[in-house]
């Protein structure tokens, strides 16, 4: 019987080849440059195309990676896998009617894959004409947007904010002496260029669907992210050699930092814009106090730790609570600290409180739903369930980091206790919105009570702001050192200082 196994295997392979040969047909890809023949196959009622052939017809490439496949076109990458109907470009998902299939060693995708990808990569629409077996690649009708750029220099960081009149896809590329923001939409601008007085940037040019940020020299690195309502593209420029000269800078994500440890810290000055936060009796606004302390903290951390430190807002900007954690997630931050100033109706209330996120029974329920959805087969899942799952996963993002968040909060509270004249109000847990979606240890510190006239007066002084910033920096430094020793990324100190003992309890200490 065993001798027959190779025979049957060959027979099955031969049969599969016949079925495969019968299922394939020829189609063509039509672009402005002409027509090119491609293979197509009918599979489960869907028309599938070999990804490599169609991509090659428009100048793109396909590669395998450990998690699936990666297609590249016009410096835009899309990742996809055979076990998912979703492909991902940056942070954006798009759905295909069927998961890609590997047939005879090649990956086949539904034609809608090219529609989603080409729209993002080259601003072209794709339609499938059954009658002529043609994949038609045509330009999308063009949307026009207007742009406004502003440049802020902040302690060695140049922040460029490009505000657009409507949301549009974009890519950011690097060329010698400039960063290029390619917009999918056409660009309307009243001026062709704006001169900039800045250590890193000399001018910003507005072209048709392109914004060129002209640098003063090539020793500049950039990272970028976007904000909604209004739609803004933000580039943070710093002195330093570009890590990947000539290669597309990430439009939404930074290149991953491989070295373990605390490499990026995001500091979030609470409130901003029309959301002024609490207001003191003499008129001090929470948004101003938090920004002043945060700026000082960023400066100290930059000097003391040599890590990348990012502010969620550098000026008086309105920023949604989810946007703040989204920025931290986009930067792949290792720590997130949100800085606030407290208020109570009891005038005498004073002192510091540090919070990390609390979960409740509904979070536990959500976790179970997420596990169930994750466990379900791809065939059983559908689009609404997946989007629900995405929301649940966002809600639970902080769950995995609660232990670390608790430790971070303890260290912050301990350092704030040391700050003379400030009474400890303890480490607490609360369902604070700004901590929900952070995929890293996260804490929120209320540095004092603006509703207390004495503390309001102190919060306005440069000295107190510096003291608070120093205390927070010491706490973050201690957490970094402790964490890196724990994960083996750093050697333990020769003489271990006695750890300060603090007690954590759920919403305790009131």
């Amino acid at each position: 019987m065993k001798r027959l196994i190779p025979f049957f295997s060959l027979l099955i392979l031969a049969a599969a080849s016949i079925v495969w040969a019968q299922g394939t047909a020829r189609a063509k890809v039509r672009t402005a440059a002409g027509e090119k023949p491609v293979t197509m196959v009918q599979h489960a009622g869907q028309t599938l195309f070999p990804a490599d052939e169609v991509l090659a017809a428009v100048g793109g490439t396909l590669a395998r990676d450990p998690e699936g496949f990666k297609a590249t076109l016009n410096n835009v990458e899309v990742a996809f896998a055979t076990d998912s109907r979703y492909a991902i470009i940056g942070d954006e998902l798009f759905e295909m009617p069927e998961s890609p299939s590997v047939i005879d060693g090649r990956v086949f995708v539904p034609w809608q894959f090219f529609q989603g990808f080409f729209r993002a990569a080259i601003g072209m629409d794709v339609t499938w004409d059954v009658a002529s077996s043609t994949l038609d690649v045509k330009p999308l009708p063009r949307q026009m947007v207007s742009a406004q750029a502003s440049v802020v220099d902040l302690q060695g960081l140049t922040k460029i904010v490009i505000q657009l009149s409507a949301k549009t896809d974009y890519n950011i590329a690097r060329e010698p002496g400039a960063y290029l923001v390619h917009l999918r939409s056409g660009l309307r601008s009243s001026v062709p260029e704006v001169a900039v007085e800045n250590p890193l940037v000399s001018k910003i040019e507005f072209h048709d669907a392109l914004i060129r940020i002209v640098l003063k020299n090539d020793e500049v690195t950039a990272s970028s992210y976007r904000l909604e309502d209004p739609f803004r593209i933000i580039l943070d420029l710093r002195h330093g050699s570009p890590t990947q000269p000539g290669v597309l800078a990430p439009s939404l994500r930074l290149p991953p930092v491989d070295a373990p440890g605390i490499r990026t810290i995001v500091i979030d000055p609470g409130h901003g814009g029309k959301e002024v936060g609490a207001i003191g009796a003499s008129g001090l606004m929470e948004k101003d106090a938090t920004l002043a302390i945060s700026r000082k903290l960023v400066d100290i951390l930059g000097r003391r730790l040599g890590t990348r430190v990012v502010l969620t807002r550098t000026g008086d900007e309105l920023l949604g609570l989810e946007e703040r954690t989204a920025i931290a997630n986009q930067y792949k931050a290792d720590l997130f600290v949100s800085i606030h100033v407290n208020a109570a109706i009891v005038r005498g209330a004073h002192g510091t409180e540090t919070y990390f996120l609390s979960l409740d029974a509904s979070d536990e329920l959500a976790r179970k739903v997420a596990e169930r959805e994750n466990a379900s087969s791809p065939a059983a899942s559908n689009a609404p369930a997946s989007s629900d799952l995405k929301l649940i996963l966002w809600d639970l993002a902080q769950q995995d980091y609660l232990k670390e968040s608790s430790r971070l909060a303890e260290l912050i509270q301990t350092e704030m206790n040391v700050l003379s004249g400030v009474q400890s109000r303890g480490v607490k847990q609360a369902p604070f919105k700004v901590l929900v979606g952070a995929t890293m240890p996260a804490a929120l510190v209320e540095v004092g009570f603006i509703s207390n006239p004495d503390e309001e007066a102190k919060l306005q002084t440069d000295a107190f702001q510096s003291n608070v910033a120093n205390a927070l920096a010491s706490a973050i430094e201690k957490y970094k050192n402790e964490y890196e020793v724990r994960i083996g990324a750093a050697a333990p100190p020769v003489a271990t200082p006695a750890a300060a003992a603090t007690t954590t309890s759920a919403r305790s200490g009131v």
Partner: protein
Amino acid sequence: LRRLLIAAAVTLALLSAEGCRSKTTAPGAAKTSDRILNREIQVFYESPRLSLVPERRKVPLPENDAAALAGAIRELLKGPRTPAVGRLLPPDAVLRAAYLLPDGNAIIDLGGPTLTAGWNTGSHNEMMAAYSIVQTASANFPEIRRVRILVNGQVAPTLGGHLRLDRALEPAPELVAVSK
């Protein structure tokens, strides 16, 4: 004959509808749900020690808990009678609606100029204000296990920029003063 048949059918339909109505409005049931009683309730405010403390009041409220919930929250919004404790919610906050659902969830829909425009307050005050509602609801109506707070009928991210309101809040006994 056709007209007669139609008239008979309409008469029958009206009679049967009347019959159904009289079944649902049994005299005893109507009085129970609508009866107003002088009920003692607890409304929660902030003590000088920054805890939630109950202020007891006897107020006329419907005997039916689902109807009485709105009355209890309106009492809370009136503010404290004791000068020693403080009102947590903005003075112009109003109750738009309150619902008690059979699964133990209560929905409290708030409105008013300050909450509509965006309340500029600190996290402590915001948290205590939200939990004063949760505590007032759950202390007076034991069937309430969670409270969902809406603003102008909508899910608001927060009341004042801190505490998430996209989930129902459960009572937080640790915020309440321990009675001696």
